């Protein structure tokens, strides 16, 4: 058992020069076979491994990561956590996750710095307000908190928003979810990794999957840069690279990979209290605990695995944010980055069995994977342990695209580049 992180451990360490700490996870050599192999050591993969070991008692598990854990999208997002979706399949799934978020630091014995500071969608006209009210009603019917705000109420929370009537984008109100907020993205990956490792999960880094071991219509293992590893069940959990890895198994997915960019400014004193989003415009702004203003917007609407974005897309998001909150124009941009997102064809994820026996899919998170980390791990672990979906991920099957039961929050249809 690892030394728990606690004030007591810290005090004890003070007496021996803090020499009792061990690495947070081991660096094991891959074994010849495992009960379950999870491809991808990001937030979702590590969470899946943790819940497999903790909830289902399956500890003979390996997480294979081609580079280092947490180096993909869990390290490239804007750390927003919320469950304010209109469609019941989505908000029930994300709400299950949000409840896990609220107890995650205690559960993992790792401070993920979850900060439920409230997340608001702005409404800029009557149509927006009707849609936001409808969304809020749908959420409240399922017991999820949602509150409509008037501009006066918004001004108390976010006094720097331009709430004047002659604003370029007038703000008529907002829908806030108070239990939503942000978390420390790296800590989520590291916390799940440490907790999974403590339960016996092998986290194998610098181990890229290059192919699958097939026996008829059954996947029995993977070929990797560190040799062949056999598995009872294999789960793909590689975010933006889902199309590529599934392609190694001969599958074509309803996924197109696109670049999503984000940026952060220099650190300043608190000026953005909540998470501010506008879906009519499409920008989102929050302030990190270090003080930087974190911003993002639309994906680059064309396929790419390059992890570098087009500056004009960033410019759009910045222009919208600065228009709504003019004080932001005084800040200097510190860093920008991109991630590869797996844009699905209805905007919702795919978690469940694949058409190939022994192979499972967790993919299609579009630009909303981070908030789903605990719920994704929980339901994927259930699916990998039992071979059947959990009731929460049952609607998110791969078959839904063929049967027409798509879960399309924005009613766009099969056009990931128009989402």
């Amino acid at each position, binding site marked *: 058992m690892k030394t728990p992180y606690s004030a007591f451990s810290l005090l004890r360490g003070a007496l021996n020069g803090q020499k009792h700490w061990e690495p947070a996870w081991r660096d094991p050599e891959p074994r010849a076979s495992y009960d379950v192999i999870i491809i991808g050591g990001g937030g979702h993969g590590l969470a899946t491994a943790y819940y497999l070991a903790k909830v289902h008692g399956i500890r003979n598990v390996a997480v294979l990561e081609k580079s280092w854990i947490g180096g993909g999208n869990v390290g490239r997002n804007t750390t927003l956590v919320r469950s304010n979706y209109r469609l019941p399949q989505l908000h029930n799934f994300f709400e299950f996750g949000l409840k896990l978020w609220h107890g995650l630091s205690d559960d993992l014995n790792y401070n993920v710095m979850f900060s439920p500071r409230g997340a608001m969608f702005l409404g800029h006209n009557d149509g927006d307000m009707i849609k936001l009210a409808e969304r809020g009603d749908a959420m409240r019917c399922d017991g999820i908190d949602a509150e409509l705000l008037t501009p006066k109420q918004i001004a108390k929370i976010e006094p720097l928003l331009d709430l004047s009537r002659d604003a370029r984008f007038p703000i008529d109100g907002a829908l806030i979810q108070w239990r939503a907020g942000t978390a420390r993205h790296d800590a989520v990956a590291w916390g799940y990794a440490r907790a999974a490792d403590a339960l016996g999960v092998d986290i194998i880094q610098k181990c890229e999957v290059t192919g699958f071991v097939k026996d008829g219509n059954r996947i029995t293992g993977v070929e990797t840069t560190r040799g062949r590893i056999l598995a009872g069940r294999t789960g793909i959990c590689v975010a933006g690279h889902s199309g*590529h890895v599934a392609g190694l198994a001969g599958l074509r997915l*309803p996924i197109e990979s696109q670049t999503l960019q984000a940026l952060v400014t220099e650190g300043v004193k608190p000026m953005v209290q909540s998470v501010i989003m506008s879906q009519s415009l499409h920008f989102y702004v929050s302030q990190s605990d270090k003080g930087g203003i974190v911003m993002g917007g639309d994906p680059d609407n064309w396929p790419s695995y390059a992890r570098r974005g087009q500056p004009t897309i960033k410019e759009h998001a910045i222009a919208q944010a600065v228009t709504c909150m003019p004080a932001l124009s005084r800040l200097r941009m510190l860093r920008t980055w991109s991630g590869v997102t797996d844009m699905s064809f209805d905007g919702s994820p795919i978690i469940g069995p694949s058409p190939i026996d022994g192979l499972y899919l967790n993919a299609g998170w579009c630009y909303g994977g981070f908030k789903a980390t605990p719920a994704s791990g929980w339901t994927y672990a259930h699916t990998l342990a039992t071979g059947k979906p959990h009731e929460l991920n049952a609607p998110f099957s791969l078959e839904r695209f063929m049967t027409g039961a798509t879960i399309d929050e924005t009613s766009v249809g099969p056009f990931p580049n128009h989402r």
Partner: protein
Amino acid sequence: MYQITCPHCGPRAQTEFTYERTTDSVVDPAGDAQTAMQALYTRANPMGLDDEIWRHTYGCRAWMVLTRHRVTHEITAVKAIGPEALP
């Protein structure tokens, strides 16, 4: 950001163009429902070259096919499509 050589207008900024879909995702009107669903709802999504339909939306508005690399963004071929490109 890079330049795309429009078959009609020559090299132009990428911001003038919009991506539509890949050539293998065009529904064949003569095909059955299964192939139509495959075309609409699946993609090869390779980490390499793919044939993509783009449009010079903020220029001459013509459609074209780019053979483009998904990692390097290198465009190896541009081909005009539409009635004007028919033999």
